[in-house]
């Protein structure tokens, strides 16, 4: 009897390497996929996400641009007219703001403005959020701006497997996608199956089943929510953790199913809470699950302040204790609700 080795489908990859592999595989499959931005060529990007792509695919396929974010995004729009599929890097979250006019006025609206005649199958990769000790302008949670702009899809993977497959989907998507990469997760490592897709974008994932409380999280808030759920278990709470995976499209259905089962919900988001994604989720849950709720939906978020200097970020960021505190306030003993002041 001969043994034939099964092809290697799964390997342990960091989140960063998974994105690199997704870019490689997309570029291999489709010559029209172009990667460009600041320092993405020879250097391989400041986070080395595009490491080796210029070497392996040539300067025509992965190239450095002038230092101008609006130009990068607008240039990508122009390339879409010729049938290219650009994947551009914004280097850091707050560095994308000069490109915001292009993103809000053209990337988001071109398909609509032209009655579907022009499609922009482009991906804008945004390394985002904090927890890495970065100085100012390097740690913004900017997902709310994009999610608030109709016409943009906003993905935010939280595992290497999702980083790989969601980027593959983003590149294949005929709609423009803002691909939010939690910087703090770049070095996290897990098995990635590059042959079998995980759940399609638009479906949330239950990362930890539980019966008494639902934590809704995404991107950088997923690991801290999972840690909080473990800690809560020690205090006797059975916590379910739902990972949204994408903010647009939003999987209302899975979130609501979980909350209706558990009857209690805390939304966790690293972005400051006021007028943000967490507030949107809390509102949607209250509207749809009102009669299933045993307590008001609470938000645990970053503080309503500019992202702080590195030595203060752990006070700013929603951590395990802040999540546990919220869980404690979910009216377990029919005590009057004590509201928070984060909104």
């Amino acid at each position, binding site marked *: 009897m001969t043994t034939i080795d099964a092809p290697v489908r799964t390997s342990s990859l960091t989140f960063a390497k998974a994105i690199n592999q997704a870019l490689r595989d997309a570029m291999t499959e489709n010559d029209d996929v172009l990667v460009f931005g600041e320092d993405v060529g020879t250097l391989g990007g400041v986070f080395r996400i595009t490491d080796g792509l210029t070497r392996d695919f040539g300067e025509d396929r992965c190239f450095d641009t*002038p230092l*101008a974010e609006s130009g990068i995004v*607008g240039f990508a729009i122009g390339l879409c*007219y010729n049938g290219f599929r650009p994947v551009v890097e914004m280097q850091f979250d707050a560095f994308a703001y000069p490109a915001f006019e*292009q993103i809000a006025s053209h990337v988001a609206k071109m398909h*609509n403005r032209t*009655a*579907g005649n022009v499609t922009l199958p482009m991906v804008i990769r945004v390394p985002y959020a904090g927890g890495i000790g970065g100085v100012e302008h390097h740690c913004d949670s900017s997902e709310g701006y994009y999610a608030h702009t109709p*016409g943009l*899809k906003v993905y935010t993977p939280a595992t290497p497997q999702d980083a790989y497959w969601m980027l593959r989907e983003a590149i294949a998507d005929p709609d423009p996608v803002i691909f939010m990469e939690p910087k703090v997760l770049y070095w996290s490592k897990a098995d990635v199956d590059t042959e079998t897709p995980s759940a399609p974008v638009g479906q949330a994932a239950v990362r930890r089943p539980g019966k008494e409380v639902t934590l809704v999280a995404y991107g950088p808030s997923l690991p801290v929510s999972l840690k909080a759920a473990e800690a809560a278990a020690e205090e006797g709470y059975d916590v379910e953790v739902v990972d949204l995976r994408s903010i647009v499209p939003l999987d209302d259905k899975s979130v609501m199913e979980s909350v209706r089962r558990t009857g209690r919900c805390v939304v966790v988001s690293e972005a400051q809470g006021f007028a943000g994604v967490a507030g949107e989720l809390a509102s949607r849950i209250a509207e749809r699950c009102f009669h299933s709720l045993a307590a008001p939906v609470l938000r645990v978020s970053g503080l309503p302040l500019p992202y702080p200097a590195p030595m203060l970020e752990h006070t700013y960021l929603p951590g395990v204790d802040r999540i546990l505190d919220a869980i404690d306030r979910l009216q377990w003993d029919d005590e009057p609700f004590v509201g928070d002041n984060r909104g």
Partner: protein
Amino acid sequence: MQTTVHDPAIEDLLPSARPVQLIDPTGAEVTQTGTRRPYVMPDADRLQDVWRHMVIGRRFDLQATALTKQGRLAVYPSSRGQEACQVAAVRALTERDWMFPTYRESMALVSRGIDPVEVLTLLRGSAHCGYEPMTHRTAAQCTPLATQLVHAAGTAYGLKRRGEDSVALGFIGDGATSEGDFHEALNFAAVFDAPAIFFVQNNKYAISVPLAKQTKAPSLAYKGIGYGVASEQVDGNDPAAVLAVMDAALEHCRSGKGPFLVEAHTYRMDAHTNADDATRYRSGDEVCAWLDRDPIARLEAYLRSRGLLNDDQANAVRQEAEALASDLRDRMNADPVVDPMSLFDNVFQSATPQVEDARAMVVRELQAADEVTR
């Protein structure tokens, strides 16, 4: 200390010291002296073609202004007086070239061969863009200033990569040269040797702000030099000169020399839009002085003096223009049918559950309204 440019690499970029002119305001041919590049009078048939399209363009523009007064258009930014820029620049292109217009380029779009009703769809308010950009190789009219120039740079680079002998032409006004995207577009196009022409219609005012408050540069054409972009300035009311400069720009781009910047000196005869009161910021004398530089009259005088245009031919073109205006009037006076459900058609190619929820809500609202009226 007086400095003189002697570096040939820089001299190749420089515009002519004065705007290129081939026909003076009286219709007389100008003897070329001192231009940076050799410019020759375009062939008679091309000049006749441009004159015809300018006459049609102006009649279209007047009709659009009238339709605004009748409430048929939400707003209309006239380009009367800028016919030489809009028409000659477009007529110099081939169908394979791309065009990136602003909201003021209605006349250019008509000259491009797009149905005038489709050109006015944006301004009528029944949809955003009435024509098919991919079919016409003409991007949707752009309202944010200069943003479409980076698209033109990207498209031009894409054309080059695809091995096409085509060029992307982006239009802007003088005010838009202050926007960041103008500079990013020139820089990107230059760095990537993209075959893009940036055509600045310097019509002297950005709404009410005169050029002197817009820039300290002696000429907007000089803005190309810093980016390594070959530049030229042209009399924007001289259709022959605009054609000749566009020919040079197109040849420059098609031969792989990268982008080209054109500053066309012209004048906006009407206000910024029908909603603007131009008497607040400019004098009647100034406007009258520009009447003497009318591009249509100028080319007509030249053509007639050469026996290239007679009364019969001129009348035939003017009748053609009247017929176009009449047809436009009739079709614009018909109330457009706008399907409210079209709101949801092209937000995403694959609609999100949230868009589907909104669609279902509007369906319910419309059904309820329908029951009330029944």
